[in-house]
C-alpha cells in the first residue's frame, strides 16, 4: 500500500470504530510492524495538531482513538448535548495520584501515604476502570499490586505515564521544586 493510503486507511478505521482501537489490531489489518504503525500514527497525529482541525488523535501504548479538539467544545455543546464527562472527588484523585506516580503499589502503600483506609477508594477506582490489579507483591499475605489502565491515560489526556506532570518529582514522593529530603 502506498504511504498516503496507509494513513487514509488508519484514519478510516479509527473514524468508523469510534471506540479506542487496539494498535495490535491496526497492525494486523494493515500487515505492518509496530514501528511502522507508530510512525504513521505520529504523522497522523501531527497532521491534525498542526492545523486548526476539529479532530485530534490520541495514542497510547495500547490503543489509538480519534477525539474532538477541545477548542471547539462550545460549538459541540450548542449543537448537541453531549454526555457530561466524569469528574472525580479530591480524595479519589489523591489515591489515584499515588497509584499513577508510584505504581505498582499495594493498598497498604496507598494507605501509608494518605494516612487513611483506602479500601473504598480502591474499589471505586477499579470499578471506574482507572486502576487494575497487575500482580502480587512477594511479601507476607501476597497483597495485590495495582497500576493504572489504558482508560486512565485517555481520561487524563496523556499518552504515557511519563507524561504526568512533574513525574520525576512525584514518583520519588517529593514536592516538585523541593530538594530531596534527607532524614
Amino acid at each position, binding site marked *: 500500500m502506498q504511504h498516503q493510503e496507509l494513513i487514509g486507511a488508519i484514519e478510516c478505521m479509527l473514524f468508523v470504530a469510534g471506540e479506542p482501537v487496539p494498535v495490535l489490531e491496526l497492525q494486523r489489518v494493515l500487515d505492518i510492524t509496530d514501528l511502522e504503525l507508530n510512525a504513521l500514527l505520529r504523522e497522523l497525529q501531527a497532521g491534525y495538531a498542526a492545523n486548526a482541525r476539529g479532530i485530534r488523535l490520541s495514542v497510547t501504548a495500547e490503543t489509538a482513538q480519534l477525539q474532538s479538539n477541545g477548542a471547539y467544545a*462550545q460549538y459541540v*455543546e450548542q449543537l448537541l448535548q453531549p454526555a457530561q464527562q466524569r469528574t472525580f472527588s479530591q480524595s479519589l*484523585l489523591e489515591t*489515584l495520584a499515588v497509584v499513577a506516580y508510584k505504581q505498582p503499589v499495594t493498598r497498604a502503600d496507598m494507605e501509608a501515604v494518605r494516612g487513611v483506609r483506602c479500601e473504598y477508594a480502591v474499589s471505586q477506582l477499579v470499578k471506574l476502570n482507572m486502576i487494575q490489579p497487575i500482580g502480587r507483591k512477594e511479601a507476607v499475605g501476597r497483597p495485590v499490586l495495582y497500576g493504572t489502565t489504558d482508560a486512565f491515560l485517555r481520561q*487524563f489526556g496523556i499518552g504515557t505515564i511519563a507524561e504526568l506532570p512533574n513525574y520525576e518529582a512525584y514518583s520519588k514522593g517529593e514536592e516538585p521544586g523541593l530538594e530531596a529530603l534527607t532524614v
Partner: protein
Amino acid sequence: MPYHVHIQQFDGPLDLLLHLIERAEVDIKDIFVSEITREYLAYMDELEGLDMDTASEFLAMAATLLYIKSRQLLPRPPREQPEEEDPEALLIRQLHEYKAFKRAGEELRQLNEAMQGIFTRLPEDVILPPQEVTLSGATMQELYQSFFTLLHTQPDEQLANPLHQVRQDAYTVRVQIAKIRQLFADKRELAFEDLFGPHPARMEIIVTFMALLEMIGHGEIHLSQPAPFAPIRLRARSLAQEDDDADYMDEYPE
C-alpha cells in the same frame, strides 16, 4: 476569629495535621516546636461525629503525637533497636509525602478538566440486511381471510376535526353521578350496560366509570360480578342527594 473546619471535612489525620500546620504558617519540620499537637488534640472532642474506623485513625495519630512529644520532654533511654526510624522523622516524612500527593491529585484534576471539552464518537450502528421471514402453518387463503375480517370489523373512523376548539368537558363526574342516581330511582338493580346508550362516546364511558368509583367510594352503590367476564351488576346502597360541597375527582377543590 478564624473559620473552624469540622473534623468531618478532613480526609484523615494527615489532612488535619497539614491544615493546622498551614494555618499556623510553620514548616512541617517545626511541627513539634509549635502548638500543633495541642490544636490537634482539641479536635479529639469532635470524634463522636465520626464512624468507628475513621475515629480510630484520628485517635491513633493523637497517640503518636503524644508519644513523640513525650520523647522530647523526657530523657531518652538508650535505643534497643538503633535501626528503628525516629517516630518524629517518620511523621515529618509522611507529612511531606502526603502534601506532595495532595498536590499531585490537584494536578490530575486539572488534567481531567482539560479533557472536559473533548469528545469521542460512538461506534456506527451496523445496519443488518432485511431478514427473510418464513411463515409456517398458514396458507395464502387463510391469511387473506383474516385480513379481510379484520378490515371489516374496524369501526368507521371519525373525520378529524380540522379546527381544534377548546370546549368545556362534555361529560363530568358530577353530571354522570346525577344520571346514575336518576336511573336508580326506578330500579334497585342495574346492569352496567344500562348506564349507556347504544353508541356511547369514549369519554362518556370513562367519566361514567369514574362516577361509579366515586359512588362506590362513598358507599352509595355496590358492584358485583357473579363470574369472571359475567355482566357487572350495580345495586343501590344508600344513594345520596345532589351535594354541592362534595369535590369529585375531575373538579378542583374550592
